[in-house]
Protein backbone atom coordinates (compact mmCIF):
# COMPACT_ATOMS: atom_id res chain seq x y z
CA UNK A 1 0.00 0.00 0.00
CA UNK A 2 2.80 2.39 0.83
CA UNK A 3 4.49 2.16 -2.59
CA UNK A 4 1.49 3.89 -4.14
CA UNK A 5 1.83 6.88 -1.81
CA UNK A 6 3.59 9.95 -3.15
CA UNK A 7 6.12 10.95 -0.51
CA UNK A 8 5.98 14.65 0.43
CA UNK A 9 9.27 16.54 0.39
CA UNK A 10 10.03 19.69 2.46
CA UNK A 11 9.65 21.65 -0.78
CA UNK A 12 6.02 20.54 -1.07
CA UNK A 13 5.29 21.79 2.43
CA UNK A 14 7.10 25.04 1.76
CA UNK A 15 4.91 25.69 -1.27
CA UNK A 16 1.72 25.10 0.74
CA UNK A 17 3.08 27.30 3.53
CA UNK A 18 3.53 30.15 1.06
CA UNK A 19 -0.26 30.21 0.58
CA UNK A 20 -0.74 30.75 4.31
CA UNK A 21 1.88 33.50 4.25
CA UNK A 22 0.02 35.23 1.41
CA UNK A 23 -3.18 34.97 3.47
CA UNK A 24 -1.42 36.44 6.51
CA UNK A 25 -0.17 39.35 4.37
CA UNK A 26 -3.66 39.95 3.03
CA UNK A 27 -5.28 40.00 6.47
CA UNK A 28 -2.51 42.33 7.67
CA UNK A 29 -3.24 44.65 4.78
CA UNK A 30 -6.97 44.53 5.58
CA UNK A 31 -6.19 45.18 9.27
CA UNK A 32 -8.24 42.22 10.44
CA UNK A 33 -5.93 41.77 13.40
CA UNK A 34 -5.54 38.04 12.85
CA UNK A 35 -2.33 37.88 10.79
CA UNK A 36 -0.15 37.36 13.85
CA UNK A 37 -2.41 34.62 15.08
CA UNK A 38 -2.41 32.93 11.65
CA UNK A 39 1.39 32.82 11.56
CA UNK A 40 1.72 31.56 15.13
CA UNK A 41 -0.99 28.93 14.66
CA UNK A 42 0.65 27.77 11.41
CA UNK A 43 4.00 27.44 13.15
CA UNK A 44 2.34 25.52 15.96
CA UNK A 45 0.82 23.15 13.42
CA UNK A 46 4.24 22.44 11.90
CA UNK A 47 5.99 21.93 15.20
CA UNK A 48 3.21 19.97 16.90
CA UNK A 49 2.52 17.62 14.02
CA UNK A 50 6.20 16.92 13.31
CA UNK A 51 6.75 16.31 17.01
CA UNK A 52 3.74 13.99 17.05
CA UNK A 53 5.17 12.18 14.05
CA UNK A 54 8.46 11.59 15.85
CA UNK A 55 6.75 10.56 19.10
CA UNK A 56 4.41 8.14 17.34
CA UNK A 57 7.26 6.67 15.29
CA UNK A 58 9.08 5.98 18.52
CA UNK A 59 5.99 4.73 20.32
CA UNK A 60 4.91 2.37 17.55
CA UNK A 61 8.31 0.67 17.74
CA UNK A 62 8.25 0.22 21.51
CA UNK A 63 4.50 -0.19 22.11
CA UNK A 64 4.89 -0.08 25.89
CA UNK A 65 1.52 0.37 27.67
CA UNK A 66 2.93 2.82 30.22
CA UNK A 67 4.30 5.08 27.49
CA UNK A 68 0.99 5.00 25.67
CA UNK A 69 -0.85 5.87 28.87
CA UNK A 70 1.59 8.73 29.43
CA UNK A 71 0.98 10.15 25.96
CA UNK A 72 -2.78 9.81 26.47
CA UNK A 73 -2.47 11.72 29.74
CA UNK A 74 -0.46 14.50 28.11
CA UNK A 75 -3.09 14.76 25.36
CA UNK A 76 -5.85 15.03 27.96
CA UNK A 77 -4.02 17.70 29.96
CA UNK A 78 -3.45 19.83 26.87
CA UNK A 79 -7.08 19.39 25.80
CA UNK A 80 -8.17 20.45 29.31
CA UNK A 81 -6.15 23.63 28.96
CA UNK A 82 -7.62 24.33 25.51
CA UNK A 83 -11.17 23.96 26.85
CA UNK A 84 -10.43 26.51 29.55
CA UNK A 85 -8.70 28.92 27.16
CA UNK A 86 -11.70 28.89 24.80
CA UNK A 87 -14.14 30.13 27.45
CA UNK A 88 -14.81 33.78 28.02
CA UNK A 89 -15.58 33.26 31.71
CA UNK A 90 -14.19 29.96 32.94
CA UNK A 91 -14.53 28.98 36.58
CA UNK A 92 -11.91 30.30 38.98
CA UNK A 93 -9.16 28.12 40.37
CA UNK A 94 -8.77 24.44 39.71
CA UNK A 95 -12.40 24.17 38.55
CA UNK A 96 -11.68 26.15 35.39
CA UNK A 97 -9.25 23.48 34.31
CA UNK A 98 -10.63 20.41 36.04
CA UNK A 99 -14.24 20.67 34.90
CA UNK A 100 -13.45 20.35 31.19
CA UNK A 101 -10.65 17.82 31.70
CA UNK A 102 -12.79 15.62 33.93
CA UNK A 103 -15.77 15.52 31.56
CA UNK A 104 -13.49 14.74 28.63
CA UNK A 105 -11.62 12.10 30.60
CA UNK A 106 -14.72 10.22 31.71
CA UNK A 107 -16.35 10.35 28.30
CA UNK A 108 -13.46 10.02 25.81
CA UNK A 109 -11.41 7.45 27.67
CA UNK A 110 -14.37 5.22 28.46
CA UNK A 111 -15.51 5.20 24.84
CA UNK A 112 -11.99 4.81 23.44
CA UNK A 113 -11.26 1.86 25.71
CA UNK A 114 -14.66 0.34 24.93
CA UNK A 115 -14.10 0.71 21.18
CA UNK A 116 -10.62 -0.76 21.34
CA UNK A 117 -11.69 -3.76 23.41
CA UNK A 118 -15.11 -4.57 22.04
CA UNK A 119 -15.29 -3.17 18.53
CA UNK A 120 -11.90 -3.05 16.81
CA UNK A 121 -10.03 -5.45 19.13
CA UNK A 122 -6.41 -5.08 17.97
CA UNK A 123 -3.85 -7.25 19.73
CA UNK A 124 -2.92 -6.01 22.28
CA UNK A 125 -5.94 -3.74 22.68
CA UNK A 126 -3.75 -0.72 23.40
CA UNK A 127 -1.78 -1.16 20.14
CA UNK A 128 -0.69 2.45 19.60
CA UNK A 129 -1.43 2.45 15.83
CA UNK A 130 -5.11 2.23 16.81
CA UNK A 131 -5.26 3.63 20.34
CA UNK A 132 -3.49 6.95 19.80
CA UNK A 133 -5.25 8.14 16.61
CA UNK A 134 -8.61 7.03 17.98
CA UNK A 135 -8.12 8.83 21.27
CA UNK A 136 -6.73 11.85 19.46
CA UNK A 137 -9.80 12.18 17.27
CA UNK A 138 -12.10 11.62 20.24
CA UNK A 139 -10.35 14.25 22.33
CA UNK A 140 -10.10 16.77 19.52
CA UNK A 141 -13.84 16.73 18.90
CA UNK A 142 -14.89 16.32 22.52
CA UNK A 143 -12.72 19.32 23.35
CA UNK A 144 -14.65 21.50 20.91
CA UNK A 145 -17.97 20.23 22.24
CA UNK A 146 -17.10 20.73 25.90
CA UNK A 147 -15.59 24.17 25.28
CA UNK A 148 -18.72 25.32 23.41
CA UNK A 149 -21.00 23.88 26.09
CA UNK A 150 -19.19 25.47 29.02
CA UNK A 151 -18.68 28.78 27.24
CA UNK A 152 -22.39 28.96 26.46
CA UNK A 153 -23.38 27.99 29.98
CA UNK A 154 -21.15 30.39 31.88
CA UNK A 155 -21.51 33.31 29.48
CA UNK A 156 -25.30 33.09 29.47
CA UNK A 157 -25.54 32.51 33.21
CA UNK A 158 -23.59 35.73 33.61
CA UNK A 159 -25.89 37.63 31.30
CA UNK A 160 -29.05 36.12 32.81
CA UNK A 161 -28.11 36.88 36.41
CA UNK A 162 -31.27 38.89 37.07
CA UNK A 163 -33.57 36.27 35.55
CA UNK A 164 -31.90 33.36 37.34
CA UNK A 165 -32.05 35.17 40.66
CA UNK A 166 -35.66 36.11 40.06
CA UNK A 167 -36.58 32.48 39.42
CA UNK A 168 -34.81 31.44 42.61
CA UNK A 169 -36.68 34.15 44.50
CA UNK A 170 -39.98 32.75 43.29
CA UNK A 171 -39.00 29.43 44.85
CA UNK A 172 -37.66 27.45 41.91
CA UNK A 173 -34.79 25.12 42.75
CA UNK A 174 -31.45 25.61 41.00
CA UNK A 175 -32.06 22.86 38.49
CA UNK A 176 -35.33 24.33 37.35
CA UNK A 177 -33.95 27.88 37.30
CA UNK A 178 -31.01 27.03 35.04
CA UNK A 179 -32.62 24.10 33.19
CA UNK A 180 -33.20 25.94 29.94
CA UNK A 181 -29.61 27.22 29.88
CA UNK A 182 -28.30 23.71 30.52
CA UNK A 183 -30.32 22.24 27.67
CA UNK A 184 -29.26 25.01 25.31
CA UNK A 185 -25.61 24.64 26.29
CA UNK A 186 -25.59 20.90 25.57
CA UNK A 187 -27.29 21.49 22.24
CA UNK A 188 -24.73 24.17 21.36
CA UNK A 189 -21.89 21.78 22.18
CA UNK A 190 -23.36 19.00 20.04
CA UNK A 191 -24.31 21.00 16.95
CA UNK A 192 -20.88 20.79 15.24
CA UNK A 193 -20.72 17.01 15.45
CA UNK A 194 -24.35 16.55 14.41
CA UNK A 195 -23.69 18.78 11.42
CA UNK A 196 -20.54 16.82 10.65
CA UNK A 197 -22.50 13.55 10.63
CA UNK A 198 -25.20 15.01 8.43
CA UNK A 199 -22.72 16.48 5.96
CA UNK A 200 -20.29 13.55 5.95
CA UNK A 201 -19.65 12.22 2.48
CA UNK A 202 -21.92 14.66 0.69
CA UNK A 203 -20.51 18.05 1.41
CA UNK A 204 -17.29 17.04 3.11
CA UNK A 205 -14.99 14.05 3.01
CA UNK A 206 -13.86 13.69 6.63
CA UNK A 207 -10.16 14.11 7.34
CA UNK A 208 -9.51 10.59 8.47
CA UNK A 209 -11.14 9.06 5.42
CA UNK A 210 -9.20 11.41 3.17
CA UNK A 211 -6.02 10.31 4.88
CA UNK A 212 -6.76 6.63 4.47
CA UNK A 213 -7.62 7.04 0.82
CA UNK A 214 -4.47 9.11 0.18
CA UNK A 215 -2.53 6.38 1.96
CA UNK A 216 -3.82 3.88 -0.59
CA UNK A 217 -6.62 2.13 1.30
CA UNK A 218 -9.77 1.10 -0.50
CA UNK A 219 -12.43 3.80 -0.19
CA UNK A 220 -14.86 1.27 1.26
CA UNK A 221 -12.49 0.33 4.09
CA UNK A 222 -11.92 4.02 4.70
CA UNK A 223 -15.69 4.65 4.76
CA UNK A 224 -16.29 1.89 7.30
CA UNK A 225 -13.60 3.24 9.60
CA UNK A 226 -14.98 6.74 9.21
CA UNK A 227 -18.48 5.59 10.18
CA UNK A 228 -17.11 3.92 13.28
CA UNK A 229 -15.11 6.99 14.24
CA UNK A 230 -18.05 9.32 13.61
CA UNK A 231 -20.26 7.33 15.97
CA UNK A 232 -17.61 7.16 18.66
CA UNK A 233 -16.90 10.88 18.38
CA UNK A 234 -20.58 11.75 18.50
CA UNK A 235 -21.17 9.62 21.58
CA UNK A 236 -18.03 10.96 23.24
CA UNK A 237 -18.86 14.58 22.52
CA UNK A 238 -22.48 14.21 23.57
CA UNK A 239 -21.80 12.47 26.86
CA UNK A 240 -19.00 14.90 27.69
CA UNK A 241 -21.23 17.90 26.91
CA UNK A 242 -24.02 16.57 29.15
CA UNK A 243 -21.54 15.88 31.93
CA UNK A 244 -19.79 19.25 31.66
CA UNK A 245 -23.08 21.12 31.58
CA UNK A 246 -24.40 19.30 34.62
CA UNK A 247 -21.27 19.68 36.75
CA UNK A 248 -20.84 23.28 35.56
CA UNK A 249 -24.43 24.24 36.36
CA UNK A 250 -24.17 22.64 39.79
CA UNK A 251 -20.99 24.60 40.45
CA UNK A 252 -22.80 27.86 39.60
CA UNK A 253 -24.89 27.38 42.76
CA UNK A 254 -23.77 26.83 46.32
CA UNK A 255 -25.28 24.52 48.96
CA UNK A 256 -27.92 27.18 49.74
CA UNK A 257 -28.86 27.24 46.05
CA UNK A 258 -27.55 30.77 45.57
CA UNK A 259 -26.28 31.80 42.15
CA UNK A 260 -22.52 32.19 42.59
CA UNK A 261 -21.27 34.10 39.58
CA UNK A 262 -18.31 35.16 41.71
CA UNK A 263 -16.98 31.68 40.99
CA UNK A 264 -16.38 32.73 37.39
CA UNK A 265 -13.25 34.52 36.24
CA UNK A 266 -13.70 37.93 34.60
CA UNK A 267 -12.80 37.86 30.89
CA UNK A 268 -9.43 38.99 29.62
Amino acid at each position, binding site marked *: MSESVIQLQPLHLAISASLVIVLALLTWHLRLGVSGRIVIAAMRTVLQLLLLGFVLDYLFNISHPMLIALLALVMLLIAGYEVMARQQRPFKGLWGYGLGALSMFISSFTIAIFTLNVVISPDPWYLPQYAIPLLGMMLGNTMTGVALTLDYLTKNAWQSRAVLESRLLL*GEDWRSAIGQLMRDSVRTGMIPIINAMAAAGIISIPGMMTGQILAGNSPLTAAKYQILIMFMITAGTGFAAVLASWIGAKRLFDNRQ*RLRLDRLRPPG
Partner: protein
Amino acid sequence: MAKLKLENLQIEHVGPVNLTVNSGEIVCISGGSGAGKSLLLRAVADVLPHEGDAWLDQMQASQTNPPTWRKTVGLLSAESQWWFDTVGEHFTCKNNELLNKLGFNSDTWGWLVSRCSTGEKQRLALLRLLCNQPRALLLDEPTGSLDARNTSVVESIIREYAKEKQVPVIWVSHSEEQIRRICKTHYEVENGQLVNA
Protein backbone atom coordinates in the same frame (compact mmCIF):
# COMPACT_ATOMS: atom_id res chain seq x y z
CA MET B 1 -49.59 35.21 62.41
CA ALA B 2 -45.85 35.40 62.00
CA LYS B 3 -43.02 37.57 63.15
CA LEU B 4 -40.02 38.27 60.90
CA LYS B 5 -36.73 38.61 62.74
CA LEU B 6 -33.35 39.56 61.28
CA GLU B 7 -30.47 38.54 63.49
CA ASN B 8 -27.04 40.13 62.96
CA LEU B 9 -27.64 40.09 59.24
CA GLN B 10 -24.51 41.27 57.49
CA ILE B 11 -23.76 41.54 53.79
CA GLU B 12 -20.91 43.46 52.17
CA HIS B 13 -20.98 46.97 53.65
CA VAL B 14 -24.38 46.51 55.28
CA GLY B 15 -24.99 45.39 58.85
CA PRO B 16 -24.96 43.85 61.27
CA VAL B 17 -28.70 44.47 61.14
CA ASN B 18 -31.13 43.44 63.87
CA LEU B 19 -34.76 44.02 63.13
CA THR B 20 -38.09 42.59 64.17
CA VAL B 21 -41.21 43.08 62.08
CA ASN B 22 -44.39 41.96 63.79
CA SER B 23 -47.21 40.18 62.04
CA GLY B 24 -49.28 42.59 60.02
CA GLU B 25 -46.73 45.37 60.53
CA ILE B 26 -45.28 47.32 57.61
CA VAL B 27 -41.77 48.66 58.14
CA CYS B 28 -40.41 51.17 55.63
CA ILE B 29 -36.77 51.44 54.69
CA SER B 30 -35.30 54.28 52.69
CA GLY B 31 -31.78 55.46 51.87
CA GLY B 32 -29.65 56.70 49.03
CA SER B 33 -28.96 54.49 46.06
CA GLY B 34 -26.14 52.10 46.81
CA ALA B 35 -26.88 52.27 50.54
CA GLY B 36 -27.63 48.56 50.49
CA LYS B 37 -31.42 48.35 50.80
CA SER B 38 -31.76 45.78 48.00
CA LEU B 39 -28.73 43.88 49.30
CA LEU B 40 -30.40 43.60 52.67
CA LEU B 41 -33.65 42.25 51.23
CA ARG B 42 -31.78 39.73 49.10
CA ALA B 43 -29.82 38.59 52.14
CA VAL B 44 -33.10 38.02 53.99
CA ALA B 45 -34.34 35.93 51.06
CA ASP B 46 -30.95 34.14 51.17
CA VAL B 47 -30.07 34.54 47.48
CA LEU B 48 -26.74 36.16 48.39
CA PRO B 49 -24.04 34.85 50.73
CA HIS B 50 -24.25 36.69 54.06
CA GLU B 51 -23.59 36.51 57.77
CA GLY B 52 -26.30 36.20 60.39
CA ASP B 53 -29.71 34.65 60.00
CA ALA B 54 -33.39 35.39 59.58
CA TRP B 55 -36.39 33.85 61.31
CA LEU B 56 -40.05 33.69 60.53
CA ASP B 57 -41.46 32.58 63.88
CA GLN B 58 -39.85 29.20 64.43
CA MET B 59 -38.69 28.90 60.85
CA GLN B 60 -34.96 29.58 60.56
CA ALA B 61 -33.70 30.61 57.11
CA SER B 62 -30.39 28.75 57.28
CA GLN B 63 -32.14 25.55 58.40
CA THR B 64 -34.89 25.65 55.79
CA ASN B 65 -34.78 24.24 52.28
CA PRO B 66 -33.87 27.37 50.22
CA PRO B 67 -36.79 27.23 47.71
CA THR B 68 -39.24 26.79 50.59
CA TRP B 69 -37.78 29.74 52.48
CA ARG B 70 -37.87 31.97 49.40
CA LYS B 71 -41.49 31.09 48.70
CA THR B 72 -42.31 31.86 52.32
CA VAL B 73 -40.66 35.30 52.38
CA GLY B 74 -41.72 36.71 49.03
CA LEU B 75 -39.28 39.24 47.61
CA LEU B 76 -40.45 41.63 44.92
CA SER B 77 -37.47 43.06 42.98
CA ALA B 78 -37.43 46.68 41.88
CA GLU B 79 -37.04 45.56 38.29
CA SER B 80 -39.24 42.62 37.37
CA GLN B 81 -37.79 39.81 35.28
CA TRP B 82 -39.62 37.73 32.69
CA TRP B 83 -38.31 34.76 30.73
CA PHE B 84 -41.20 33.15 28.86
CA ASP B 85 -42.96 34.71 25.87
CA THR B 86 -46.42 35.23 27.34
CA VAL B 87 -47.50 36.65 30.69
CA GLY B 88 -49.55 33.61 31.69
CA GLU B 89 -46.65 31.14 31.43
CA HIS B 90 -45.02 32.84 34.42
CA PHE B 91 -47.95 32.21 36.73
CA THR B 92 -48.62 29.17 38.92
CA CYS B 93 -52.08 30.50 39.78
CA LYS B 94 -54.60 32.57 37.85
CA ASN B 95 -56.23 35.00 40.29
CA ASN B 96 -58.62 36.89 38.00
CA GLU B 97 -60.11 38.94 40.81
CA LEU B 98 -56.77 40.52 41.75
CA LEU B 99 -55.90 40.76 38.07
CA ASN B 100 -58.98 42.92 37.45
CA LYS B 101 -58.25 45.00 40.51
CA LEU B 102 -54.82 45.77 39.08
CA GLY B 103 -56.44 47.03 35.89
CA PHE B 104 -56.07 43.97 33.68
CA ASN B 105 -58.48 41.40 32.33
CA SER B 106 -58.29 37.69 31.57
CA ASP B 107 -56.88 38.44 28.08
CA THR B 108 -53.73 39.60 29.86
CA TRP B 109 -52.62 35.98 30.43
CA GLY B 110 -52.09 35.69 26.71
CA TRP B 111 -50.22 38.97 26.30
CA LEU B 112 -46.64 38.97 25.09
CA VAL B 113 -44.32 40.12 27.85
CA SER B 114 -42.33 42.10 25.29
CA ARG B 115 -45.45 44.19 24.65
CA CYS B 116 -45.95 45.16 28.30
CA SER B 117 -44.79 48.46 29.75
CA THR B 118 -42.47 48.61 32.77
CA GLY B 119 -45.40 49.62 34.97
CA GLU B 120 -47.60 46.77 33.74
CA LYS B 121 -44.79 44.32 34.37
CA GLN B 122 -44.29 45.66 37.87
CA ARG B 123 -47.96 45.18 38.76
CA LEU B 124 -48.01 41.72 37.21
CA ALA B 125 -44.86 40.80 39.14
CA LEU B 126 -46.70 41.54 42.40
CA LEU B 127 -49.53 39.28 41.32
CA ARG B 128 -47.04 36.57 40.39
CA LEU B 129 -45.38 36.83 43.78
CA LEU B 130 -48.69 36.53 45.63
CA CYS B 131 -49.33 33.17 43.91
CA ASN B 132 -46.83 31.69 46.35
CA GLN B 133 -48.97 32.89 49.28
CA PRO B 134 -45.90 34.34 51.03
CA ARG B 135 -46.06 34.64 54.80
CA ALA B 136 -43.79 37.70 54.75
CA LEU B 137 -43.25 40.36 52.10
CA LEU B 138 -39.97 42.01 51.12
CA LEU B 139 -40.85 44.78 48.69
CA ASP B 140 -38.18 46.68 46.79
CA GLU B 141 -39.85 49.87 45.54
CA PRO B 142 -43.03 48.07 44.48
CA THR B 143 -44.54 51.23 43.02
CA GLY B 144 -41.31 52.65 41.60
CA SER B 145 -42.55 52.88 38.03
CA LEU B 146 -46.28 53.38 38.61
CA ASP B 147 -48.48 56.44 38.18
CA ALA B 148 -50.48 57.84 41.11
CA ARG B 149 -53.63 55.81 40.40
CA ASN B 150 -51.85 52.49 40.10
CA THR B 151 -49.66 53.31 43.08
CA SER B 152 -52.71 53.64 45.29
CA VAL B 153 -54.19 50.39 43.90
CA VAL B 154 -50.98 48.48 44.62
CA GLU B 155 -50.69 50.06 48.07
CA SER B 156 -54.17 48.99 49.00
CA ILE B 157 -53.67 45.44 47.71
CA ILE B 158 -50.50 45.01 49.74
CA ARG B 159 -52.07 46.56 52.86
CA GLU B 160 -55.08 44.29 52.57
CA TYR B 161 -52.89 41.24 52.09
CA ALA B 162 -50.74 42.18 55.09
CA LYS B 163 -53.76 42.80 57.26
CA GLU B 164 -55.81 39.81 56.21
CA LYS B 165 -52.95 37.28 56.44
CA GLN B 166 -51.18 39.09 59.28
CA VAL B 167 -47.98 39.16 57.26
CA PRO B 168 -44.91 41.20 58.25
CA VAL B 169 -43.78 43.54 55.46
CA ILE B 170 -40.49 45.31 54.76
CA TRP B 171 -41.14 48.04 52.22
CA VAL B 172 -38.30 49.88 50.52
CA SER B 173 -39.49 53.24 49.25
CA HIS B 174 -38.06 56.54 48.08
CA SER B 175 -41.27 58.52 48.41
CA GLU B 176 -41.68 60.47 51.66
CA GLU B 177 -45.42 60.70 51.08
CA GLN B 178 -45.77 56.98 50.54
CA ILE B 179 -43.79 56.25 53.69
CA ARG B 180 -46.09 58.57 55.67
CA ARG B 181 -49.14 56.84 54.20
CA ILE B 182 -47.96 53.27 54.70
CA CYS B 183 -45.63 52.90 57.65
CA LYS B 184 -45.63 53.64 61.33
CA THR B 185 -42.00 52.52 61.57
CA HIS B 186 -39.45 54.01 59.19
CA TYR B 187 -35.72 53.36 59.05
CA GLU B 188 -33.07 54.92 56.94
CA VAL B 189 -29.97 53.01 55.85
CA GLU B 190 -26.96 55.08 56.86
CA ASN B 191 -23.41 53.73 56.72
CA GLY B 192 -24.78 50.21 56.55
CA GLN B 193 -26.95 50.61 59.65
CA LEU B 194 -30.69 51.06 60.14
CA VAL B 195 -31.37 54.33 61.91
CA ASN B 196 -34.75 55.62 63.01
CA ALA B 197 -36.06 58.25 60.65
